């Protein structure tokens, strides 16, 4: 039995085509269709229901001196001491082998309080992992906001929509910055998964439908499903957990070494991850840009000029904004340099491709 977000009924009324994603029945696309939804987000503002994602909080300094900062610097390779309050950092949870348990957004909401957004498909295991690593002899608090919804409003008109509909001027809110309503019943972060300017808005479930309908009433807003969310994130080279990263890929292999804090050497899996950092890795995540005709999707073998298999595509598809077929995947490290000529094998046909820098196009997120 698939789970439903609080907005499921709204999606049905809108005529969404839904499908199973991470145990939820989620909208894949609405009336515009995937391609136009994708283009709408790049030109206007798209509204996504991402309430299936997990929202959790860990906070407090307990009597034994464990702080939430220490805790997050143990479960992730990042540093948090230097993160300003009301700012967000992207990071990963690592296991003992240096693999990625999940990728997540961590927002510092107080001196010692952190709110996180975790992937829907990883919720249960993340929560179990996080709880099991909270020191038993202390009182760091853990909260799972199960009754909260999350809406993403993404696109160049997002700032105007929020100003005109919610009467909040967020034009000066920095990228990865957080705005909190006085009653703590609405949290708006300037970030997303599309490469466009925009926000993720967290509200209690009981406020979600009204918020959705209000935002939808703006002429610049169209509802956008998970299919366009995928093509939008692919153009930005963002990872999709369970595809481009998983518990067997280290942050270094995944090209996410930038999340590792310089001072942080004590996180779970640090021995493997730091070894990868200092001595290199055998395979690396790269962008793939198809030159020949065709579309390559997840699982397609990546070959070198001689036809030798050098890796596998972990995501792939058509990129509407680039009018090209792109993907990402892992290749042997010696082939990871942007510009390297490769081939992707699709239905036994070799399609010429090049290793590409990511993102494939410039992000339009707020600068600064």
């Amino acid at each position: 039995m698939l789970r439903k977000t609080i907005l499921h009924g709204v999606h049905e009324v809108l005529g969404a085509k839904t499908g199973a994603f991470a145990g939820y029945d989620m909208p894949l696309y609405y009336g515009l269709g995937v391609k136009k939804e994708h283009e709408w987000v790049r030109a206007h503002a798209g509204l996504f229901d991402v309430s299936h994602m997990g929202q959790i909080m860990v906070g407090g300094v307990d009597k034994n001196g464990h702080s939430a900062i220490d805790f997050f610097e143990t479960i992730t390779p990042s540093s948090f001491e230097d993160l300003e309050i009301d700012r967000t950092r992207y990071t990963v949870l690592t296991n003992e082998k240096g693999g990625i348990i999940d990728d997540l957004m961590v927002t510092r909401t107080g001196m010692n309080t952190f709110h996180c957004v975790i992937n829907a498909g990883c919720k249960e295991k993340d929560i179990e992992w996080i709880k099991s690593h909270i020191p038993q002899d202390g009182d760091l608090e853990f909260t799972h906001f199960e009754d909260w919804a999350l809406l993403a409003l993404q696109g160049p008109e997002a700032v105007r929509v929020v100003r005109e509909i919610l009467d909040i001027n967020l034009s000066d809110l920095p990228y990865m910055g957080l705005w909190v309503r006085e009653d703590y019943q609405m949290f708006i972060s300037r970030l997303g998964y599309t490469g466009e300017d925009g926000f993720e808005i967290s509200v209690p479930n009981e406020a979600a439908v009204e918020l959705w309908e209000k935002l939808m009433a703006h002429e610049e807003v169209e509802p956008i499903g998970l299919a366009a969310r995928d093509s939008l994130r692919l153009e930005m080279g963002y990872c999709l957990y369970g595809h481009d990263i998983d518990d067997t890929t280290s942050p270094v292999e995944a090209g996410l070494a930038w999340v590792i804090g310089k001072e942080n050497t004590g996180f779970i899996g640090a021995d493997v991850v730091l070894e990868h950092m200092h001595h290199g890795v055998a395979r690396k995540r790269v962008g793939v840009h198809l030159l020949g005709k065709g579309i390559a999707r997840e699982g397609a073998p990546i070959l070198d000029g001689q036809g030798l298999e050098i890796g596998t595509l972990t995501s792939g598809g058509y990129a509407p904004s680039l009018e090209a077929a792109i993907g990402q995947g892992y290749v042997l490290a010696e082939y990871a340099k942007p510009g390297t000529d490769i081939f992707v094998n699709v239905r036994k046909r070799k399609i010429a491709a090049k290793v590409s820098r990511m993102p494939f196009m410039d992000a339009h997120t707020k600068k600064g």
Partner: protein
Amino acid sequence: MAEFKYTKDHECVYVEGDIAFIGISKHARDALGDLVYIELPEIGKSVEKGAEVAVVESVKTAAEIYLPVDGVVVAVNEEMAEAFELVSSPVNEKGWIVKVKVADISALDELMNEAAYAEYLKEID
């Protein structure tokens, strides 16, 4: 009015003499959404019943086109490979993807007609 036949995989077939025009049904087009690529076979290729003869790709997914009968590819719609909207035209006009010469054209009689296909769509919905 042209008579079309349908497969359970949503191919749409039009028969003219011993040539079968193979396209996709409106249901399949709606499910796929905007096409972004069509992979066509070589002319002269022999394809067995149930085997893949072409692939149409949308932003969302790739859909294989299977032949409902043994045949030899005699024409491929190069024009559609450049103008994807043609897939919406009737299969007997510009909406065909491949034309196949079929030895046993009566084998296509077992495909669904318009009414049976409409029923089938209701069943699988």
